[in-house]
């Protein structure tokens, strides 16, 4: 109670400070006047009486100060005073203020931008109930076939086993991604689908914004076609209208002729955008409704035992640890694999399947490609930007030191007049905090621009990336981002402000006030602090420059890889003829007839069909048997397969080194032919063995029978599934002999025409044929470039920060050397007067800085060497301790360092001793 009233009294003071101070003045004034009047009555002269009264009262100022301090408010008063004093000081030297604020803004802005991304991609938990309980169920170890060992790595029958038998989780659900086309005719567009099992939303604890969500009861065989809208999609597509719920929409699989109608039952809450980081879903549909999109006689993905497309998430039971759950799954999953075993595989892969076990990993922050690709680079970039900020702070510290040396006289006068050291330090500190505050505000603006630019680069590679960067008023501010900015700003101002303030007010620095600021000889200790700062700055700059050189060189290596085929002028057209209504055995011939039409288009040099896109993954691996070849124990002979039409190698520019290309005669009825690449020959045949005419057998798989081929040709090896793997055995089979029939075609087209006009002319030709659609087109070189967005981002940003670090370090070094030289003007003047030559003076000064440079470079090189190991797997074509990058960086720094110190050194050598010695 009493505490409250005391606090209330103090609080009242804060608001009525002026009134209270006035009252106190009045009271004291009255006190002194009354006492003086009394003394006067007792016989003193008026002047003496007043004087006596004042003396009796003591120090008036101190009394007032003590009284105010009673409220604990002097601190606040002092801070306000210090801040306004700081603002005045900054206004008086706008050059300093602008430099300081700009360099801090750059540092803070860069850090914030990267942190925003990292926060969005990595740190933020899913906005669901107890996200730390969520676990992803997956196949343990290196799952080899059918799956790609990432999300959606299970089959639907396997999910049913988990759902029906698991005991590790309190709830478990399946979730998969997919694209469907939404709407009809020309307005049709692709929407992102989340396929969910009935338990998904209840287990996550996601709320409905409108209507209801998919529930357990909706998840049964032949369930009604219902859809739940994602909040963002509801806003964009329906303008957030209530009437959306209850309406129906048409969805179609791109490879199916007819659309199906789904009725909207609800909208998810705004915070929840799906399980995948950065890529929100548009519509959530129950798995069981998937069949409505397919013809009755078509493929059934819910019963397919070899289609890996489902991801499974479980929620830990209370009191069960992640480890326990994972071990439990591992122990109990063998019968589930047995029950869901694919039926069409050969014995060898079945052995692998039977050895599979399930495990689980914590996924409190969701899943996603974006995070897997960008997490490490972002941490790295955050480290880089932190170093840039450090350099900026060191520069500021040096600037402040130089300023404070000029102000030493001011400080000593103020301390002599009774200001405590703490008071002077706090004044300097608040001045730096003011700088940091301005820097933080400007930096936040910069961060908003920079982080959006980075997201754009990322989106080049991945469509539909939407990240909540946490600094949007409408979407709500993320406290982590705000706290980060505040923390960085305060840490910066403490590091450069407090340290210099303490340093500048040290007793021996204060001696400067007596003897004049310029000592005659160099006091080494006086510059020790600056020298350490400069050497540290050099070390950090070296680290940053080496990092940027490594990333730029690595990116350049990737850009200049020769993939073994000509990328320029190579385009791909993805077509389907679902609506042509062809019988199965008519599809390959139809695709070939399309190819003939494309070849006839003016401007097309050559064209061919293929089942895959080079360097894009999505390839088909088959286990094989090559007579005469023994695979190492525990290994399976396997090889990438691609089905291509005659003319494919000519179109891509891959030279044939032996045998023949495919011909029209390699048709469905003819013996199976195979063309292999040189890596295949190297792996499966002995030296000097002629592969032509030899046979290869591929083992049985679902939808692909056991097949015996004869090798008819050998081609030069080209990069196949990705740009980085140089040596991969690849086998090509004739398109017409593909046993499994899809109404689609991928047409490779070589032309010197730009893609835009080419797709106009080819698209025009193809669209005239009934039932044919062109779904997508791409230029391979552009595709390769966008596929390198991550490396591009790293190279650009680290290069940018490297240059920034160099600029900052140069300014810092120049400033400090100039300052040291100017502080030694008198000494240098004497030396010159005594006969020192210009070059002797220059070399004397350069010797000092060379020492600094050397120390900094050695430390920087050691640090870079230690750090470089961690970036090894982000580099291509060079070792992390690449001597060229290290050497070049060191050379650049030495050159810049000598230039930055050489200019002030030369200036000082031209001093006129007559002038400098008379200065005082």
């Amino acid at each position, binding site marked *: 109670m*009493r505490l409250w*009233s*005391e606090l209330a*009294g*103090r609080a009242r003071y804060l608001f009525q400070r002026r009134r209270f101070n006035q*009252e*106190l003045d*009045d*009271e*004291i*004034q*009255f*006190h002194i*006047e*009354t*006492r003086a009047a009394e003394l006067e009555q007792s016989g003193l002269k008026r002047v003496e009486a007043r004087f006596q009264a004042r003396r*009796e*009262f*003591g*120090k*008036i100022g*101190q*009394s*007032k100060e*003590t*009284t105010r*301090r*009673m*409220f*604990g408010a*002097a*601190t606040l008063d002092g801070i306000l005073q210090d801040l306004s004093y700081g603002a005045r000081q900054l206004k008086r030297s706008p050059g300093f203020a602008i430099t300081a604020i700009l360099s801090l803004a750059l540092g803070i802005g860069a850090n914030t931008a990267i942190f925003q991304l990292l926060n969005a991609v990595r740190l933020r938990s899913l906005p669901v109930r107890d996200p730390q309980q969520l676990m992803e169920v997956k196949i343990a170890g290196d799952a080899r076939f059918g799956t790609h060992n990432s999300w959606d790595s299970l089959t639907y029958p396997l999910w049913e086993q988990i759902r029906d038998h698991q005991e590790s989780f309190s709830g478990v659900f399946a979730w998969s991604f997919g694209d469907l086309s939404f709407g009809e005719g020309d307005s049709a567009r692709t929407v992102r689908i989340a396929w969910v099992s009935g338990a998904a939303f209840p287990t996550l604890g996601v709320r409905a914004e409108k209507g209801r969500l998919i529930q357990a009861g909706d998840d049964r065989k032949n369930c009604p076609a219902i859809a739940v809208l994602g909040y963002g999609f509801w806003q964009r597509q329906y303008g957030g209208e209530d009437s959306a719920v209850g309406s129906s929409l048409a969805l179609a699989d791109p490879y199916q002729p007819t659309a199906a109608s789904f009725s909207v039952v609800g909208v998810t809450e705004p915070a929840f955008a799906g399980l995948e980081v950065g890529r929100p879903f548009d519509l959530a549909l129950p798995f069981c409704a998937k069949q409505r999109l397919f013809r009755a006689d078509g493929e059934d993905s819910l019963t397919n035992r070899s289609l890996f497309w489902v991801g499974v998430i479980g929620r830990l039971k209370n009191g069960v640890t992640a480890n326990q759950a994972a071990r439990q799954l591992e122990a109990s999953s063998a019968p589930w694999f047995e029950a869901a075993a694919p039926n069409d595989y050969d014995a060898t892969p079945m052995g692998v399947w039977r050895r599979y076990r399930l495990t689980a990993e914590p996924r409190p922050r969701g899943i996603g490609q974006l995070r897997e690709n960008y997490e490490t680079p972002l941490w790295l970039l955050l480290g880089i930007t932190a170093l840039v900020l450090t350099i900026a702070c060191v520069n500021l510290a040096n600037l402040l030191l130089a300023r404070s040396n000029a102000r030493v006289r001011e400080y000593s006068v103020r301390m002599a007049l009774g200001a405590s050291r703490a008071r002077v330090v706090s004044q300097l500190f608040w001045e730096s905090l003011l700088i940091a505050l301005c820097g933080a505000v400007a930096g936040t603006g910069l961060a908003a621009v920079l982080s959006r630019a980075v997201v754009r680069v990322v989106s080049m590679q991945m469509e539909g990336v939407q990240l909540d960067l946490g600094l949007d008023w409408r979407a709500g501010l993320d406290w982590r981002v705000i706290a980060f900015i505040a923390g960085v700003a305060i840490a910066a101002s403490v590091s450069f402000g407090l340290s210099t303030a303490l340093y500048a007010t040290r007793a021996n620095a204060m001696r400067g006030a007596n003897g004049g600021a310029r000592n005659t000889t160099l006091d080494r200790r006086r510059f020790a602090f600056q020298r350490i700062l400069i050497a540290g700055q050099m070390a950090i700059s070296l680290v940053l420059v080496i990092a940027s050189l490594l990333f730029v060189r690595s990116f350049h290596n990737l850009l200049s890889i020769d993939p073994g085929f000509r990328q320029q002028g190579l385009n791909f057209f993805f077509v389907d003829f679902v609506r042509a209504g062809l019988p199965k055995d008519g599809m390959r011939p139809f695709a070939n007839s399309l190819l003939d039409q494309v070849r006839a288009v003016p401007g097309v040099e050559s064209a061919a069909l293929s089942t895959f896109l080079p360097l894009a993954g999505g390839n088909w691996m088959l286990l094989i048997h090559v007579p005469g070849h023994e695979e190492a124990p525990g290994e399976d002979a396997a090889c990438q397969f691609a089905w291509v039409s005659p003319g494919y190698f000519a179109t891509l520019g891959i030279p044939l080194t032996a045998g023949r290309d495919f011909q029209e005669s390699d048709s469905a009825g003819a013996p199976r032919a195979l063309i292999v690449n040189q890596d295949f020959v190297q792996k499966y045949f002995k030296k000097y063995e002629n592969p032509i005419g030899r046979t290869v057998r591929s083992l049985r798989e679902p939808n692909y029978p056991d097949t015996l081929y004869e090798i008819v040709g050998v081609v030069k090896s080209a990069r196949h599934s990705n740009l980085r793997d140089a040596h991969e055995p690849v086998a090509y089979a004739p398109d017409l002999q593909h046993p499994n029939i899809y109404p689609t075609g991928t047409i490779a087209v070589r032309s010197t025409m730009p893609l835009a006009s080419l797709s106009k002319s080819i698209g025009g030709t193809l669209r005239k044929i009934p039932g044919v659609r062109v779904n997508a087109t791409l230029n391979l070189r552009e595709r390769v470039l966008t596929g390198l967005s991550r490396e591009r981002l790293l190279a650009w940003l680290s290069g940018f920060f490297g240059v920034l670090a160099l600029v900052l370090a140069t300014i810092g070094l120049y400033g400090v050397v100039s300052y040291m030289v100017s502080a030694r003007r008198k000494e240098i003047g004497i030396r010159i007067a005594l006969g020192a030559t210009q070059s002797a003076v220059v070399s004397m000064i350069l010797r000092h800085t060379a020492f600094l440079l050397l120390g900094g470079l050695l430390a920087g090189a050691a640090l870079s060497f230690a750090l470089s190991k961690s970036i090894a797997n982000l580099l291509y074509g060079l070792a992390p301790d690449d001597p060229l990058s290290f050497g070049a960086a060191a050379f650049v720094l030495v050159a810049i360092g000598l230039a930055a110190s050489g200019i002030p050194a030369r200036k000082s050598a031209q001093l006129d001793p007559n002038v400098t010695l008379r200065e005082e």
Partner: protein
Amino acid sequence: MGRRDGNADLLPGTLHLMILRTLQREHLHGYAIAKRIRELSGGEFEIEDGSLYPALTRMVLKGWLKAKPALSENQRKIKIYELTPAGRRRLEQESGAFKKMIRAIQLVMKPS
């Protein structure tokens, strides 16, 4: 925040005690309090006037005193201080404690 109220020569809390005691009977302004203390102590306690106002402010904040704005005879804005019930209780506690302390000091200082 160092808190130094009261004269260094005085025993801690003495100034508070004397102010409370002075205000027990009458309501006074700051100068009158200082004067009354000097008179009552027979000139022994020459409190430095500068330390009076910090002490008064602190006691107002503690809730022992109430300050009422008023006008002096020569039309100056001043404050009249008066004891609150909490102040009265405080005075009783403190004077008890103070008496004990004085007794203790006397015992120690007793000429042997």
